[in-house]
């Protein structure tokens, strides 16, 4: 089954190879690694090499094999064929604990850190014994040691005495990397292998920049493999890039070999290449123009002073933190909200009643809405979040999840009373959105992230709402699901006149999805700029330029 590699494989088994890798030496090597689950091939003869000082960007859709590859290296999944080499020796970890001892660290968004402890405590957690005498922790010594280590690796900007939950998310991931480096040094390993699992998902631009700058001094000390859904980020972060598609390695090379367009094409594959045409998913592109034509007057409706139509959403001096936001969204309009800091996202959550609202008015379809999620939903609006774990009951049946908004809106009694009717209703909803889903009785957690997200959109639109708030609606979904979501939004806006308000962490999403993009000042909430599409074509680049100029003008806090 396994191709034997020299004499090491026979003797080494899984014990930690404590070899020392010098700069430029190979830390991780994969030799024709294949992983099969039943009939499905998750990784197909993938060969890769990562050297010390190298950051390899691993690109690919959901299901392309990125996670499986990480699982193999971490000892969670054993390869069916092929060999993994760590520092030149055969490496067959039986568990993640095994892999860690050998110097493999995986950093995910769900960090393995303690938010209630300080940076220093988090960093030495694995090596705490060194800083205690007779079981009593010597705090001063601990802080000093971590501080000197931080200085050594070039991260003296992070105060080791601060509690972790006071730090921005980007820095928390950096702290976990620092801990990995610290543990390595404690155990005499010089170059760890660090696997970064989607480190930028959910981070703002400022935070992504922060992560990149804090990652910079650490790069020489480790071999890093990082995944991301965003091609541009891989281009920004990586020294080398490898693209997986359907379990196969379809491209590998130095960063200079790739540009954003090529990378996008490689990730999507020939069968999806048409979705990338003109840089926007086909559904949105097709639906945009008829939607525009049906509302020739939408142009003048920006300030809410349009006499004919009632705005679907009107915010009057809505207080969010220190900012005050006023805004109008007309029926059928798709408005994108951008700001520096986290204001735009908080505006959406405040309107939806998830964050408390104390000052300012929210009007939905001409009626004033009191605070709270119940009032928001009863006003005929819906909130769709990309945080699927917060929006779905993952262990409960698909049908229960699909009908929950109906229950909340008071239309659910008949559906709940008859399981057969509820299943049929769900089946119809799934089919009308052309989703691939098994039996409605199956738990929703068995669906892919993309299908879960489409279900969230579908169940919101099934309420026939006048307004839908989209909070990072395509977070972590593949390009096909993304295109389907954009198409569903465009259809609902064009055909049914549903108004949409979008917040996203991908600028391309604004240009692909929105008729109008509004840039808010993160501190005051004032509208700084507004783009109308397609007359005043906003590109992701111009949005980013505007956003970055704001961040420069007003240095970020924290």
């Amino acid at each position, binding site marked *: 089954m396994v191709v034997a590699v020299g004499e090491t494989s026979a003797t080494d088994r899984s014990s930690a190879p404590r070899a020392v890798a010098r700069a430029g030496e190979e830390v991780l090597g994969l030799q024709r690694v294949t992983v099969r*689950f*039943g*009939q*499905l091939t*998750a990784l197909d003869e993938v060969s890769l090499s990562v050297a010390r000082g190298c950051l390899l960007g691993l690109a690919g*859709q*959901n*299901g*392309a094999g*990125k*996670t*499986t590859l990480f*699982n193999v290296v971490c000892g*969670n*999944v054993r390869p069916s064929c092929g060999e993994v080499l760590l520092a030149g020796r055969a490496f067959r970890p039986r568990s993640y604990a095994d892999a860690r001892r050998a110097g493999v660290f995986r950093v995910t968004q769900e960090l393995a850190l303690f938010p209630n402890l300080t940076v220093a405590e988090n960093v030495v957690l694995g090596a705490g014994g060194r800083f205690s005498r007779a079981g009593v922790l010597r705090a001063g010594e601990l802080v000093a040691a971590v501080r000197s280590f931080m200085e050594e690796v070039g991260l003296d900007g992070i105060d080791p005495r601060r509690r972790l939950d006071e730090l921005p998310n980007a820095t928390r991931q950096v702290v976990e990397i620092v801990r990995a480096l610290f543990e390595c040094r404690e155990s005499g390993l010089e170059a760890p292998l660090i696997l970064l699992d989607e480190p930028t998902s959910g981070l703002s631009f400022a935070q992504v920049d922060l992560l990149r700058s804090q990652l910079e001094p650490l790069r020489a000390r480790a071999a890093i493999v990082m995944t991301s859904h965003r091609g541009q980020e891989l281009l920004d972060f990586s020294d080398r890039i490898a693209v997986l598609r359907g379990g196969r390695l379809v491209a590998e090379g130095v960063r200079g070999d790739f540009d954003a367009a090529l990378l996008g094409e490689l990730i999507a594959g020939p069968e999806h290449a048409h979705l990338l045409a003109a840089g926007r998913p086909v559904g949105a592109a097709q639906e945009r123009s008829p939607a525009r034509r049906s509302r020739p007057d939408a142009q003048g409706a920006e300030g809410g002073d349009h006499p004919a139509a009632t705005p679907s959403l009107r915010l009057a001096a809505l207080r969010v933190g220190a900012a005050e936001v006023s805004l109008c969204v007309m029926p059928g309009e798709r408005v994108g909200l951008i700001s520096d800091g986290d204001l735009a996202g908080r505006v959406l959550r405040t309107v*939806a*009643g*998830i964050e408390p609202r104390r000052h300012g008015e929210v009007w939905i379809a001409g009626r004033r809405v009191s605070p709270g*999620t*119940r009032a*928001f*939903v*009863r006003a005929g609006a*819906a*909130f769709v*979040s990309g945080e699927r*774990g*917060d*929006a*779905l*009951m*993952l*262990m*409960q049946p698909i049908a*229960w999840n699909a009908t*929950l*908004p109906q*229950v*909340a*809106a008071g239309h*659910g*009694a008949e559906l*709940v*009373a*008859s399981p057969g009717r509820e299943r049929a209703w769900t089946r119809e909803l799934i089919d009308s959105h052309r989703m*691939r*889903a*098994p*039996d409605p*009785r*199956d738990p929703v957690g*068995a*669906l*892919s*992230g*993309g*299908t879960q997200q489409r279900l969230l959109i579908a169940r919101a639109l099934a309420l026939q709402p006048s307004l839908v708030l989209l909070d990072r609606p395509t977070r972590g979904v*593949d390009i*096909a*699901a993304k295109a389907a979501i954009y198409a569903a939004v465009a259809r609902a806006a064009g055909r049914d006149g549903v108004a949409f308000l979008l917040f996203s962490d991908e600028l391309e999403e604004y240009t692909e999805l929105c008729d109008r993009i509004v840039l808010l000042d993160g501190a005051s909430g004032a509208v700084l700029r507004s783009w109308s599409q397609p007359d005043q074509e906003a590109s992701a680049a111009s949005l980013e330029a505007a956003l970055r100029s704001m961040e420069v003008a007003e240095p970020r806090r924290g």
Partner: protein
Amino acid sequence: MTDTGGALLESGRPPSALGAGEPLARARRLLREHARTLTAWLAAIVLPVLFTSLDGNYLSSGNLQSIGRQAAVLLLIALAGTAPILMGSIDLSVGALVSLTSVIAAWGAERFGQGAVFLALPCGLAAGILNGLIVAYLRLPSFLTTLASSFAFAGVALAISGGFPITLQATATTQAHVLDGNLSSALPVSVLWAVGIWLVTIGLLRRTVFGRVVYAIGGNERAAQTVGVWVNRAKVGAFALSGLLCGFAGIIVLYETTAATADVGSTYLLTSIAAVVIGGTPLSGGEGGAGRCLIGTLVLTELVNGMLLLGLGASTQQIVEGAVVIAAAMLTLDRRRIGIVK
């Protein structure tokens, strides 16, 4: 298929069922849904066989009646605990509340005549609502709230009874017959009451919006809140239901024992939670349901009754009961999925 397959891969679970046909998928679902109750069903069948082989009197009509009467009370109290457990909460005041309502029923009967035993129902309901209001609106953990309120309820029961049993007089009335007597020579009326209430509770939790919201809170409270479900009202409702069912149980207990004491319900607390868990409703919430209480109740009652019949001492009984609860929790809880245990 590719879509789903990808997701399973990404989550790191071996998707062995990929490509499985529709009938196979259905079989797997059935097995998954019923795997946890299977052990309990087996125990419910094996225990009588075992005890009969050890003592021929086990299956006598007298003993079966006594099992039925014991099970009826336990079933009602287990049902009371179910709705809060489905929400991921817990009601630790059921035992004390059964004592309180039982004492109130006896006191009412003594003062105002037999009809006043039904005072237990509004009192139980009010006590449950109080629990619910504290949990939902003061946002205190149900564990703490109901543990504390159980002390208060026990105190009230003690105050009303004055520390002495209140005996139920004149059991020959027709009403006593409706609540206590035997329908035929073998079937106690209390069993009918319990089964009827059991069926109603199943319907309430499975087929109504209220029940669905209870399950949704257990499944993911934040998700329920975000889509605008009336989470707080459902919480009060679930504890109110618990209180009402304790009221019923209090009345039945009173007629079983013909005298109410201030601690008559206290032994039922752990046993009723055990019945829920043995039935296959995990304490983590969102899964299981009222239907499963019946089997858990049967297993426990058969076990206790059998040990009694064999003349095992109270100490042995308690040890066995405790061990059974832990074993049941091990079998019914999917601990891999829960991940972190506190």
